[in-house]
C-alpha cells in the first residue's frame, strides 16, 4: 500500500463524519474501535517502513493549486514515523481511559477530527498542507477545552487559540516569502518542503525567516516567554484534552524546528544556538521552580511539561546527531510519560473532584496499584535510568555537552529540580498517614484504567531498556539531515558547528 499515509490521515476524518450517524450510546465503542484501527494502520506503516532508508518514504504528490505551487504532498521519514505512532497510540489510550459521559458523541467526533489533523501535520511535506493541518488542529482543541473544561475554560481555550493563531500567521508570512524567493530563483512556484531544502539563502534572509518560523513554532512548544497559555490550557482542559495537548500538540512545535528551521536555515540556526539555548535553559530551570511552587498536581505536571520541552529544544539546537536524535526520542518519551501522568491525575480527579495535593496524603495504602504506576511514570519523567525518560535526556545532554559544557550543566540541574518537585508531589500525595476522611474509601484503579495505563508502563520500561528499534531509524534520518545541513551551510562557523557532530560520529 503506497498510499497508506493518505489512509492514515483521512480514515479518522471519514470515521468522524460517519460518526454523526452513530447512536449516542455506542459512540464510545465506535471511537475506540476507529482509534484502534488507526493505531494498527500506523503499526503497519512502521512494519513496512524501511529503516535503512533515511529519506522520505510512502511519498504521495497530487497538485492542488499548481499556479501557486500548492500540492497535496506527504511522506514519512524516521523522524516523523514514531511521532505519528505516538499520536495514534495516545489517541487510542486517551479514548479508552476517558470518563467523560456528557456529550460523549461530540467528544468522540472531535477527537477523530483532531487525530486527522495531528497525523496530517506530521506527514505533510508541503508547507501549505502543513499549515492547513497545523491551524485546523486548533479548532477541535478549542472545542475540547471550551466545552468540557473547568471554570475558566472559555478564557483558557480562547487564549490557547489566539496565541497559536497569531504565531502561525507570522510563520505563514515566512512561508510565503520562502516561496517567493524560490520563485525568483527557479521561476517555479513551489511550497514543497523538499524543494525548499535545496534553496541556499543568504544569511540575513535566513535570520529573518528563522525568526518568522520561530514565532510559529516557539509559541506552540511553548518556549519561554510564550509559555503562559499552556498552564491555563492544561489547568482547564479535561483529562483527554491535557493528554493530547501534552503528548502530541506540543510536539508539533519542536517537530517544526526539526523539519523546517534546521534544514532550511542551517546558518541562522547555528547563529541562534546561544539565544535559543539561553531561552531553553531559562525555561528548564524557571518552570521547574514554578512547578515546585504549585499546589495543584496537574499544574505541577503542566509546568514540568514545559520544563521538559526545554530539554527537547536544547537537544535540537545541539546540531549533532546525539542531540537531535535524543530530542526526537525525548519527544516520544515526553509524550508517553506526560500523557500517562495527566491520565493518572485524571483518575484521582474523577474520584475526588480535586487536584490539590493538600487534600491527599497516604494514598499508597488505599490505592496501591495506582501508587505503583504513578511512581513508575514519575520516575520516567524525572529521567531515571532504565526508563524511557533517561534515554532522551541523556542523549540530549550528551549532544549539547559538545556545544557548551556550562550550559549543559545548567540544563542538567533540571534532573535534580525535577526529582525534587516530583518526589515532593509523590510524598505529599502518597506517603504518610491517610489524614483526609474522604480518601479512606477511594477505589483503586478499575479494569478500564488499568488496561489503558499498563501498555504505557510496558512501553516506558521496554524503550528504557532497549531503545534501539526506535532510535535507529530516527538516528538514520537525523544523520542524513545533519550531513545535508553541513553541505548546505554557507558560513564557516556553521560548517564547523555541524561538522563537529559528523567527525564525532565517524570515530
Amino acid at each position, binding site marked *: 500500500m503506497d498510499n497508506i499515509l493518505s489512509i492514515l490521515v483521512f480514515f479518522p476524518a471519514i470515521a468522524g463524519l460517519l460518526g454523526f450517524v452513530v447512536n449516542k450510546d455506542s459512540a464510545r465503542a465506535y471511537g475506540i474501535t476507529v482509534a484502534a484501527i488507526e493505531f494498527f494502520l500506523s503499526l503497519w506503516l512502521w512494519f513496512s517502513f524501511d529503516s535503512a532508508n533515511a529519506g522520505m518514504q510512502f511519498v504521495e504528490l497530487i497538485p492542488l493549486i499548481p499556479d501557486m505551487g500548492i500540492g497535496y504532498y506527504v511522506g514519512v521519514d524516521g523522524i516523523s514515523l514514531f511521532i505519528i505512532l505516538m499520536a495514534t497510540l495516545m489517541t487510542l489510550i486517551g479514548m479508552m481511559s476517558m470518563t467523560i459521559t456528557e456529550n460523549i458523541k461530540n467528544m468522540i467526533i472531535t477527537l477523530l477530527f483532531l487525530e486527522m489533523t495531528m497525523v496530517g501535520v506530521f506527514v505533510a511535506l508541503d508547507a501549505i498542507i502543513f499549515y492547513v493541518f497545523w491551524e485546523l488542529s486548533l479548532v477541535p482543541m*478549542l472545542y475540547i477545552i471550551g466545552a468540557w473544561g473547568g471554570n475558566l475554560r472559555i478564557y483558557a*481555550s480562547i487564549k490557547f487559540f489566539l496565541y497559536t493563531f497569531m504565531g502561525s500567521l507570522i510563520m505563514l508570512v515566512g512561508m510565503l516569502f520562502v516561496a517567493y524567493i524560490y520563485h525568483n530563483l527557479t521561476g517555479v512556484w513551489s511550497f514543497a518542503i523538499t524543494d525548499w531544502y535545496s534553496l541556499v539563502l543568504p544569511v540575513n534572509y535566513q535570520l529573518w525567516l528563522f525568526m518568522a518560523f520561530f514565532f510559529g513554532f516557539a509559541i506552540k512548544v511553548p518556549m519561554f516567554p510564550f509559555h503562559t497559555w499552556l498552564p491555563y490550557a492544561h489547568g482547564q482542559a479535561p483529562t483527554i484534552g491535557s493528554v493530547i495537548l501534552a503528548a502530541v500538540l506540543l510536539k508539533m512545535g519542536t517537530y517544526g524546528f526539526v523539519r523546517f528551521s534546521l534544514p532550511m536555515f542551517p546558518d541562522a540556526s547555528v547563529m541562534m544556538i546561544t539565544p535559543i539555548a539561553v531561552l531553553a535553559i531559562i525555561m528548564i530551570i524557571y518552570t521547574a521552580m514554578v512547578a515546585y511552587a504549585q499546589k495543584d498536581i496537574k499544574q505541577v505536571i503542566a509546568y514540568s511539561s514545559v520544563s521538559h520541552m526545554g530539554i527537547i529544544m536544547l537537544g535540537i539546537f545541539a546540531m549533532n546527531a546525539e542531540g537531535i536524535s535524543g530530542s526526537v526520542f525525548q519527544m516520544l518519551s515526553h509524550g508517553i510519560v506526560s500523557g500517562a501522568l495527566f491520565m493518572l491525575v485524571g483518575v484521582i480527579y474523577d474520584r475526588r473532584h480535586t487536584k490539590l495535593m493538600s487534600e491527599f496524603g497516604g494514598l499508597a495504602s488505599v490505592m496501591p496499584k495506582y501508587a505503583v504506576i504513578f511512581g513508575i511514570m514519575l520516575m520516567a519523567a524525572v529521567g531515571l535510568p532504565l526508563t524511557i525518560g533517561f534515554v532522551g535526556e541523556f542523549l540530549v545532554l550528551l549532544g549539547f555537552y559538545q556545544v557548551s559544557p556550562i550550559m549543559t550543566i545548567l540544563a542538567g540541574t533540571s534532573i535534580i529540580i525535577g526529582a525534587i518537585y516530583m518526589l515532593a508531589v509523590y510524598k505529599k500525595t502518597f506517603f504518610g498517614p491517610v489524614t483526609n476522611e474522604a480518601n479512606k474509601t477511594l477505589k483503586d484503579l478499575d479494569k478500564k484504567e488499568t488496561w489503558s495505563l499498563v501498555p504505557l508502563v510496558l512501553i516506558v520500561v521496554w524503550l528504557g531498556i532497549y531503545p534501539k528499534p526506535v532510535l535507529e531509524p530516527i538516528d538514520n534520518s537525523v544523520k542524513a539531515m545533519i550531513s545535508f545541513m553541513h553541505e548546505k551551510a554557507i558560513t564557516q562557523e556553521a560548517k564547523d558547528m555541524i561538522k563537529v557532530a559528523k567527525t564525532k560520529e565517524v570515530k
Partner: protein
Amino acid sequence: MLQPINVSLESLNLITLAPMLIAIAGALIILVLDLINNKLHKSLYVMLTLLVLFVDFGATLGLNVNERGFFDVMLIDGISIISQLMIIVGSMIFIPLALTSKRFHEYSYPEFFALFLFMIAGFQFMVASDNLILIFVGIETASLSLYTLIALHNRSNSYEAAVKYFTMGALAAAFYAMGSAVIYALTGSVELYKVAEVMATRLNEAGLMIAIFGSSMLLLVAFAFKLSLFPFHTWAPDVYEGASAPLAGYMSVVPKIAAFVVTIRIFGMYIDLGVEWVRIVLLVMAVVTMTLANIMALVQEDVKRMLAYSSISHAGFIMAALALDTTEGTTAIFLYYALFMFTNLGAFSMLWISRHKNRRFDKRYDHPYEKFAGFIKIMPVGAVVMAVFMLSLAGVPPFSLFWGKIYVMQAAVNAGYVWLAIVMGLNSAIAAYYYLKLIVYMFLKDPVKDVDTIYYNLSKPLIAVIGFATITTIAAIFYVQPLISYLYYMISASGY
C-alpha cells in the same frame, strides 16, 4: 455649424450593451406582469428574476474580451467581464433568500424585484465603462435603487439606514462629480484612457501635481464612502443593521465589487503614471481601515454589527491588494471577493433565518451574541455551518477565505511589501477573536431564553442557498485553481 454625424449600426457594437439591456428588460417585464395581474405570488418574481439573471450571465460570458462599443463609451475588458459575472452570481445567491417561510412584506412587492434588476444594470454599467460620466450614471442608478430596497424593509431603523445611506451616497456622488470635473479641466476628456495619455505628456509640468492631488483626493473620498474605508466607514454598521440581513450581506459584497473595479481603473491609472504618493495614501488607508475596523468589531455586541465591521476590515484587505497594482494584486482582489461572497452571504443568511417578524430578541439589538448561545444544542447542523463560515472569515485553513488571504499576502510579498503581509497576518489574528466569540457562544454556552426564534425563517430555498454557500466554503481547495487561472488570464488580458 454642426457636422452631421453618420453612424453605422455595426460600429456601435451594441452587443456590449446586451447584458445591461437584459437586466433592464427583465425589470420591465416584471413591472408589466404586475400591471396585468397584481395577485401574483413572490415566488414567481423570484424565479423570474433568477431566470433573467441566468440569461444575463450567459450574455456576459459570451462577450469578447477587449472590445469597445457605443461610441467607445462601453469598455468590455477582462475585469469588466469577471466583475459582471461576480455581480450576477452574487445576485443569484441573494434573490432566493426572499423565499422565507414567513412573509416579509418587501418581497411581496414586484417593485422590489424590478428595482433589484435595475440596480444590477447600474452596477454593470459601472464596471463596463471607463467613461467617468457613464460610471457616474451607473453609480447613481444602482445606488438609488439600493436606497429604496433598504427602505422597503419596513422598520423604523430601515428608514434611518436608507436615509443615512442616501445622504452619505449623495455626498459621495458630489465628491465624485467634483473629482471628475477636475480631471476634465486638466485633460479635456472624461475617458480614462485619453486622460491617462494627456496626463502622461503633462506630468512634468509645474503645478500639475496639485491638480492631480485635488482630483485624486476628491475621487478617493467618493470611493472611500462607497467602499466604507476609514475614515468614511461610519455609515456602514448602522446601514447594515437597519437593512435586512440578506441585503446587508449583499451590500457588503456586490456594490463593493463594482466600486472596486472603478477604483482599480482610476487609481491604477494614477499609480501607473508614476504618482507614487497615491499608492502610499491607498496603503495607509487600507492598513488603517483593516486595523481600526477590527478593533471596533472586537467590542460589538451584535453579530450583525460585528459582521459589518468585519466586512469593512476585509475591504481594507482588498484595498491593500489594489494599492499593489500588480496583476497578482488585481487577481487577488477578485479571488478574495469571489470567495468572500459565498462565505459572507452564507453568514448573513444564517442571521436571516433567525429573524422574527415582530418579536425582537432584544430592545437594542436584533442579533446579539446571546441570541446564538447554545446554538449547538438547538440546531447542531446550523451551529456547525455558522462556525464554518466564521472560521472561513477568520482565515482558518482549509476554508475558502484562507486561500484568498494567502493569495493576497503572497501578492504583497511578491511586490516587495513584506511588512504589509505581516500587518495582514496580525490583523487576521485580531479578527480571529471576534469570530471565535460567536463560536464560543454557539458551542460553549447554554441557551439564554426562548430559542424558537433562532431558526424561525428556515425554508427549503434558504437551506439550499446556505448549503451551497457551505459547500463552496468547505470545498474551496478544489476550485481555487481553475478560478485563479481564469481570473489571472482575464486580468492579464486586459492589461492590469
